[in-house]
């Protein structure tokens, strides 16, 4: 099993093939519309597309002009339009408008819609209702998986979180199952699957059904990934709501990492333009600091710059030949490293500046007391002041949610007053935001007694039906309790430390939150893998509202000698944070195993809050 002794973690499988598959399919689809064509790309598909096929590849396949969806084509546009879109109703209406406008002006064109990752019937319905279904041809680009790094694969579906957890919309489960099927066919068969959460369970079931239908060809192949662990985001909101303090997380919180790269603005680059930097294991500087606590990063960077200087300095004693070698072999690498180093130092400075401005220390302190569960009153007043001073709508909301979820809901008085304060500060439209937060269970009122909501009692009448049975637990989330305090105690999430926690030489996963808190999601994964199942965790499971599973594929040989047994695919449904990634990377290093991350999207507290905010129409 994975945790036997301390071994070197195995290398992750090569995920480059996923990119090649996606590129080949896209090229094929583009070729299906021969001749010059203009390509309209959905805004949030642009960055992922860029990672798969750059502009020159598109041009090679007769793409003439590129437009962002929602922009009107120029008058001299091509006779063929190709739309590369997500299956969304809004986008369909945009396309229908273009087609109808062309019809009005008597212009005839060919239209092709490529849905990624798959087509939804509702989209076709809209096209039909708008009367353009006969004018367009539809295709699917099965681009489910984008490898962001050697161990991170993203589905790039940020709307998954809101659609599933808030709206109860199940349509993204199918793409998840298909993504699993794809990974299983390339790197599987996965011997063992664990999971917790309703969505995890449904995705897993659907995936198994798909496998059964396709009569798996991969039998008997040597797997590259041995285990898979699926987890719903709503199992652990706390971790996602915490401020991130490992470098990669901080960069994400501060600058927003988009699709594996970040735009460093002028304040970082200390020039007048921003630079786009790809953040992954290829970046030698970044790969060494990404998982470090921020407090150790500065020290590391200055050490690094001294080393770099020393390497430059070696030039001095060189003769001509050595100099020649140095210039031809090392200099370029050094220069590159130098450039990256100065960028990251710039980024650190910028982060420091921003954080001190916002009383970062105070916030962290308040957060820690919330996690540990003391001085709740003080924290509440801190949040109140935060709201009153209009520090940041997202931040205020985040702290309110963190308070609610760690305390199993706010006491009625605070619930009302904080919300009133918030509305006064940030605008009345947030009334809807609060409604959403209540629905999803992030900001609730402590209930005096357990009362079923009207919907629930209605639904429970229908439990005989299998489908309705599923639904009953869906609505549990309405009144679901987070039970954070009890779980934290059971799993020992708050480390007891004598003296200062050494952030440079961490002992456990708590280091990603400054030694104050072991991320719940990661702790569950650790425990389940260690126990090879859920035995002994019954109480925790109950507190987490159940829906756990653990399934072995009997057809897969369980060969402990295989490296793949120590490669674990962790699937986060609803997003995962860089802090969680860092924590599991640390765990992997400790236990000699490798974690691969598959997430619907990279998330952080701000993205989660934004997903809940009801934008003004």
């Amino acid at each position, binding site marked *: 099993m994975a945790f036997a002794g301390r071994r070197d973690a195995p290398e992750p499988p090569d995920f480059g093939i996923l990119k090649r598959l996606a590129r080949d399919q896209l090229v094929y689809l583009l070729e299906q519309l021969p001749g010059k064509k203009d390509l309209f790309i959905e805004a949030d598909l642009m960055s992922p597309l860029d990672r798969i096929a750059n502009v020159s590849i598109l041009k090679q396949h007769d793409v003439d002009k590129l437009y962002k969806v929602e922009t009107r084509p120029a008058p001299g546009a091509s006779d063929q339009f190709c739309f590369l879109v997500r299956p969304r109703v809004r986008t369909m209406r945009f396309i229908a408008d273009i087609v109808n406008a062309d019809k009005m002006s008597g212009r005839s064109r060919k239209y092709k819609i490529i849905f990624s990752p798959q087509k939804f019937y509702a989209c076709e319905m809209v096209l039909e209702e708008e009367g353009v279904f006969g004018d367009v041809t539809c295709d699917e680009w099965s681009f489910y998986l984008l490898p962001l790094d050697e161990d991170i694969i993203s589905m790039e579906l940020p709307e998954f979180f809101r659609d599933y957890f808030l709206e109860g919309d199940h349509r993204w489960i199918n793409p998840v199952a298909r993504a699993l099927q794809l990974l299983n066919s390339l790197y599987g068969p996965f011997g063992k699957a664990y999971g917790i959460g309703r969505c995890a369970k449904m995705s897993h079931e659907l995936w198994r059904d798909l496998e059964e239908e396709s009569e798996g060809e991969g039998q008997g192949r040597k797997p590259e990934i041995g285990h898979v662990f699926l987890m719903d985001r709503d199992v652990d909101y706390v971790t996602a709501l915490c401020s991130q303090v490992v470098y990669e997380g901080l960069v994400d919180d501060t600058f927003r990492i988009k699709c594996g790269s970040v735009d460093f603005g002028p304040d970082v680059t200390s020039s007048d333009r921003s630079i786009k930097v790809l953040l992954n294991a290829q970046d030698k500087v970044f790969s060494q600091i990404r998982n470090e606590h921020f407090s150790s990063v500065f020290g590391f960077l200055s050490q690094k710059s001294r080393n770099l200087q020393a390497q430059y300095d070696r030039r001095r004693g060189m003769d001509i030949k050595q100099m020649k070698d140095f210039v031809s072999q090392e200099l370029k690498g050094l220069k590159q490293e130098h450039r990256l180093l100065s960028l990251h130092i710039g980024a650190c400075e910028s982060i420091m500046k921003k954080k001190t401005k916002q009383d970062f220390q105070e916030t962290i302190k308040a957060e820690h007391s919330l996690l540990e569960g003391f001085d709740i009153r003080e924290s509440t007043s801190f949040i109140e002041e935060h709201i009153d001073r209009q520090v940041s709508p997202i931040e205020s909301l985040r702290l309110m949610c963190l308070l609610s979820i760690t305390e199993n809901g706010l006491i009625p008085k605070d619930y009302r007053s904080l919300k009133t304060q918030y*509305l006064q500060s940030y605008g*009345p439209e947030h009334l809807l935001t609060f409604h959403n937060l209540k629905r999803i269970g992030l900001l609730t009122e402590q209930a005096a007694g357990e009362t079923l909501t009207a919907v629930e009692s209605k639904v429970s009448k229908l439990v005989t039906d299998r489908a309705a049975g599923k639904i009953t637990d869906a609505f549990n989330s309405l009144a679901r309790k987070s039970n954070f305090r009890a779980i934290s105690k059971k799993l020992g999430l708050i480390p007891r430390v004598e003296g200062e926690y050494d952030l440079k030489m961490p002992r456990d996963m708590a280091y990603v939150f400054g030694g104050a808190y072991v991320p719940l999601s990661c702790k569950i994964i650790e425990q389940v893998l260690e126990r090879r199942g859920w035995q002994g965790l019954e109480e925790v499971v109950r507190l987490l509202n159940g829906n756990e599973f653990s399934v072995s594929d009997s057809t897969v040989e369980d060969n402990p000698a295989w490296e793949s047994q120590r490669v674990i695919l962790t699937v986060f449904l609803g997003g995962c944070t860089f802090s969680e990634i860092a924590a599991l990377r640390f765990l992997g290093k400790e236990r000699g195993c490798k974690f691969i991350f598959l997430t619907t999207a990279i998330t952080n507290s701000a993205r989660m809050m934004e997903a809940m905010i009801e934008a003004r129409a």
Partner: protein
Amino acid sequence: MDCYTANWYPLGEEAFYRKLELYSMEWGLREDLRDCVVAAAPYGGPIALLRNSRRDKAPSSRPLLEIYSASGLLLASVPWKSGRLVQLGWTAGEDLLCIQEDGTVLVYNLFCEFKRHFSMGNEVLQNHVLEAQVFHTEFGTGVAILTGAFRFSLATNIDDLKLRRLPEVPGLQQPPGCWAVLSQDRVTVVLLAVGPELFLLDNTSCSSVTPPGLSPSAGPFLHMAVSFNHRLLALFCDSGYIWMGLATLKEKFCEFNSTVRSPPKQMVWCTRPRSRQRAVVVAWERQLMVVGNSSECIRFVLDEDSHLVPELDGVRILSRTSHEFLHEIPEASQEIFRIASMAPGALLLEAQKEYEKESQKADEYLREIREQQLLPEAVGQCIEAAGYEHEPHTQKSLLRAASFGKCFLDKFPPESFVRMCQDLRVLNAIRDYQIGIPLTFTQYKQLTIEVLLDRLVLRRLYPLAIRICEFLRLPEIQGVSRILAHWACSKVQQKDKSDEEVAQAINQKLGDTPGISYSEIATRAYDCGRAELAIKLLEYEPRSGEQVPLLLKMKRSKLALGKAIESGDTDLVYTVVLHLKNELNRGTFFMTLQNQPVALSLYRQFCRHQERDTLKDLYNQDDNHQELGNFHVHSSYSEKRIEGRVGALQNALDEFNKARNDFAAKATEEQIKLLRLQRHLQEDFDKPYLDLSLHDTVSTLILDGHYKRAEQLYREFKIPDKRYWWLKISALATRGDWEEMEKFSKSKKSPIGYLPFVEVAVKHHNRYEARKYAPRVPPEQRVKAFVLVGDLEQAAEAAMEHKSEAEMNLVLSRCSPGTDGALAEKLTRARAQLLKK
């Protein structure tokens, strides 16, 4: 075996023909065949018979349409109730085509069950069909008709009906002597003879043609025959002269004078692939003639009325009592069985016989073959010849010889032998008179096993088909499963069994055989009007996705919805939901959704983007006041005018009240109040206030110096003191109204303390103002305040007063060695003293 060649008849130098009996017919016909319309399908197919249609015109007696197997077993019969029949014919898929005088073509299956009908055009209705022919080309089965107006129409593929009316033949006043459909270079044309002239009719033109080398004394054409592959043509003239050549009329092979001047009943080609002779079989009432490239011909006497059926490799001859096959002896058989043949195969056969007799001659024969190194060829010949034999006994002796020869060969690939054994077993099984498909080996290879299985399935011979699949080890999906599915489809049509019985029988037999689609079977059941059975069968379908479309078709939408949800496929759910939306009235539709939360939430999502008003109706239906309130709040934002916005919020307020959501109601009320106030402000100050939060509104008022108005709002909206103080001092500082700030600070005791005053002032780089407030800061925070304003002396003093090490450290960290050296020293000393205690 001495008499083996007894029934061989030579034609010319090289070719032999033989006639062998396939079956003695079981059908016990009372009439002569000449009284019936007969059609037999090629490839050993079934025979259709319509009795006394032409002669007996008495309307009272209905003729009987009968279908027999090739061995004469009755498959089905049905009284013919439709119009006058002109011609019967079979399609490639073994459907019976009945061409009526009025141009309607009725299609029946093998069991006389009506399938469909189509018409050969309106023009025919008046003119009637005089003659018709069914023909087969690479496009499928075609029908050609000659109308009473002497015009030809044809359709090359009845499954994709495109009628073509051919051009008129100039001067045609009477039916042509004979005609035939030719297929040349993927074009179908009609060749017709008018007296001694030949015309070729294509899509656009009619051209006169002359066969090369036609004898001048030939006389008018009476009959013509096109070969199975459309390549050869034979013409019979009234002088008894027969011309044989290419159908393109570019080359003549040979001619023959039969000296029979009466028109033959039938004339068909009798050839085979790689034929040595190309011969034509001509049948009169009582005699049969095989003529080819030879001055002689083979004559047979016919005892009874006979009907010729051309095949790929010979001719079948049907009569009242027997069913015979006339064909040219294939090469391999000829080599082996020809009298005194010294071919290796013949020697091998002989050797094996001697071996069985335990005679040493076996060795001599074998030696002879091996000396010429022809043993592999000998084995090959025996295997091949076995395929051409009809008698299992002969097949066996040939195979035995082959197997004997194989023993003396190293590395003779066994496939051909094994394959032949298997094929012969299959062929013998289907040739059995109970089955009655007299396929020859050549036909079988041309037809392929898949088609053969289809034909068995068509005849509902499921067990045999399955046995063959199992015997040949065909993959389940193409073999057994497919047949079982067909079986099940025909099972559901058995009306005498109850739904329960049928469903159970099907499930028992099919189980979870891979490749079986229960939904397909259910579809068939539904098509036969057995909806209940269809639902039962669908229960066995493991993929719910497959169940849904049929359930929808059956109008079981609610069941379909349940199944769709179970499948986890949201597209399916959408399909059903939108289907329901069109099918049900709005009220029932919503009610249905209320019971299916998954569907409901999907539909809500759809409405949210596409039909917002429907969303409102949905909530209304459910009395979901909370959501209705939210809906109104949401729509208020799209209102540009304040009045509109207030109106929408009023609606929301009502709903929130109904939902007993006090908080939301109050918040909405306040918002309405704020909006009204903002309108006044907008009028008073001519500045946009809309879309500002309460905080921002007050803040803006202060920034603009309307302190009174701000104060008013503060009271009216009961803004908490703390917030108001924070808000006011930051706004004042931004505005730079320090005087007002000082006044404000003295108005009463600050609820937020005085540190914020310091901070705000410092933030706006006004240390001077900041210093004013520092002393008022309570002792606990004073050090921080002094540090902020940069008064390190005071800060140090305060810190020392508090005797707090942390505070001292804070001040120390701010001391720069150059300017504050003395202070730092003082502090360090104090700290040391503190630590000593």
